[in-house]
């Protein structure tokens, strides 16, 4: 990173997240997902700036009281800048507009509407972190204090957030561990004595202590094996089902598919597609070519990488940041920035992929698909097992991104 330069790590990100919903924020590493998440908790580095609004709504009448930007049309407020370590600066306008069930414990102290980005450190420390927004961190083993047992850390959190009577503390901490399925006989272990899965559950237990209406999970499944990924994903899903709003920041599309109601795809600091998760992962499929490419990279699908690499956030091209890697790009794409997706859903693209037709007949490869490239994504991809044509003995895909290949596979 170059010294002294402002880098917009996140720009103009807007979305709504309702109680009982899980929104998955997905994208390649370095696209700004974690900066956005950190901004919501005031955990950005000191030289970062964030502008915009991130409203958390609590209180019984919350759902009724929508403001002028109700429905999430947060086209919004001033740009937000975050400036992560070293130099970066993010421009973000998150609209985490979350109306949620009132939490009896929180209700008295917290105003009905709280702007996380405008809140001062005192408010963040006393009202937001752990109480209003719980954090499930990336790499839980590193997040836990290494020199204290899990029990000690849980008891401290319970004491701070719930203030139980002294004699109830032990039981309350054990109950908190139980909620995250952390085994009671491991409570006296130190973090380094825990497996990755148990450390994950310890971190989840800590995040759940405050019964926060919003749960923010930042890459909670990185480095876990598939069983643990599934278990963590299912646990997050359960918390959404119990009325919390869950923001899942992840690059693991499989976990996102398992957990999320809605998907927001980020690329180079911007949200490029917002979609219903079922539409996104099933049919009609993603509409932004980048989102389609991301799905196509899954080993259960085409296993084909997106050509090129993500741009430097400090030197984004004019127009659409994805244009240099996009097979659908035209002159318009290199000069004009597409409009961001509406909070109800959509793609920030001049040439979005059209939903797949009911019959795959049009997918037949032919000269026509060369003059007007057939989008690889909307072709309904076969089930994982059958998705592996005999011809593919290896990942021949990555080297030859051929838009007609997916059609041939189907």
């Amino acid at each position, binding site marked *: *990173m170059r010294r002294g330069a402002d880098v917009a790590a996140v720009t103009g990100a807007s979305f709504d997240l309702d109680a009982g919903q899980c929104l998955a924020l997905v*994208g*390649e*590493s*370095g696209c700004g997902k974690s900066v956005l998440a950190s901004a919501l908790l005031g955990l950005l580095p000191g030289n970062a700036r964030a502008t915009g609004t991130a409203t958390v709504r609590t209180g019984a009448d919350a759902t009724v009281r929508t403001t002028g930007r109700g429905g999430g049309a947060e086209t919004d407020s001033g740009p937000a800048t975050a400036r992560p370590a*070293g130099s970066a600066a993010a421009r973000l306008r998150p609209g985490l507009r979350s109306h949620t069930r009132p939490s009896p414990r929180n209700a008295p102290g917290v105003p009905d509407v709280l702007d996380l980005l405008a809140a001062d450190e005192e408010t963040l420390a006393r009202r937001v972190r752990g109480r209003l927004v719980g954090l499930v961190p990336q790499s839980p083993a590193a997040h836990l204090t290494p020199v204290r047992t899990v029990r000690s850390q849980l008891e401290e959190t319970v004491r701070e957030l719930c203030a139980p009577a002294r004699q109830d503390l032990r039981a309350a901490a054990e109950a908190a561990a139980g909620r995250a399925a952390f085994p009671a006989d491991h409570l006296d*272990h130190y973090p380094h*004595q*825990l*497996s*990755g*899965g*148990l450390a994950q559950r310890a971190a989840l237990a800590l995040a759940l202590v405050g019964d926060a209406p919003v749960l923010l999970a930042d890459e909670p499944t*990185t*480095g*876990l*094996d*598939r*069983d*643990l990924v599934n278990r963590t994903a299912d646990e997050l899903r359960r918390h959404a089902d119990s009325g919390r709003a869950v923001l899942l920041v992840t*690059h*693991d*599309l499989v976990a996102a598919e398992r957990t999320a109601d809605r998907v927001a795809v980020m690329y180079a600091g911007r949200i490029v597609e917002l979609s219903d998760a079922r539409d996104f992962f099933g049919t009609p499929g993603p509409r932004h070519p980048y989102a389609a*490419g*991301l*799905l196509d*990279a*899954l*080993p*259960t699908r085409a*296993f*084909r*990488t*997106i050509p090129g*690499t993500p741009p*430097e956030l400090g030197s984004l091209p004019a127009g659409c940041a994805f244009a240099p890697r996009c097979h659908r790009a035209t002159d318009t794409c290199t000069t004009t920035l597409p409009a961001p997706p509406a909070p109800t859903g959509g793609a920030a693209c001049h040439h979005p992929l059209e939903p797949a037709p009911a019959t795959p007949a049009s997918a037949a490869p032919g000269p026509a698909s060369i003059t007007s490239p057939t989008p690889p994504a909307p072709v309904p991809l076969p089930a*994982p097992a059958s998705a*592996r044509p005999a011809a*593919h*003995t*290896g*990942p*021949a*895909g*990555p*080297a030859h991104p051929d838009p007609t290949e997916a059609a041939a596979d189907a």
Partner: protein
Amino acid sequence: MLELRRITAGYDRRAPVLRGVSLDIAPGEAVGLLGPSGCGKSTLARVAALLHRPDSGEVVVDGTPARGWRHRAPREQRTAFGVVFQQPRLSTDPRLTLAAAVAEPLRATGRRAEAGSRTAELAEAVGLTPDLLTRRPHEVSDGQLQRACLARALALRPRWLVCDEMTAMLDASTTAALVGVVEDYRRQTGAGLLAVGHDRDLLERWCDRTVTLESLTAPPGGPRSPVAGR
């Protein structure tokens, strides 16, 4: 041919992680080793790459039994392996630029002269721009750093590649890209591959065959006791 014969290995002689594990990898073959966290698959990968001395058993590399391990391994055997680990941040020196990290194996084997050209060639193969090569690990993303780690593993043109959860920290597109780089290299050189991971979908797509530790363990040992914790 890479042969692992009745390997018993671990970190405490009284409680080995692996007991009597045998695995053969033919030249040019890609074998995926599947298993949950903590089952010992990384230990087997380390033994195979001559990075961990087994308590008993034998590793035969292209017909020559391994006699030394880690820095005691003869250079000819040591440099026959390229290894990529799961966490690029823990496997790169934070003080080195990516270019220096990629060139380190060349410098360590007295081939400094070709470091410049070979680094440029490798950087292009793994998709690192010249600008990225001048940075240090904290200035790049996990995906970019892992690309550098893969370039470093390929620097000495190893005959065997060991990828221990190479893509566990990475997104789908970077995963597909790195696997593509490995496969391109193997196509050019005929190198064999041991890929360790827990993602069945990925390894079945990537490798010629997949195995689990149970399937490699000799029957007389009986069922292995589960490993508690880590």
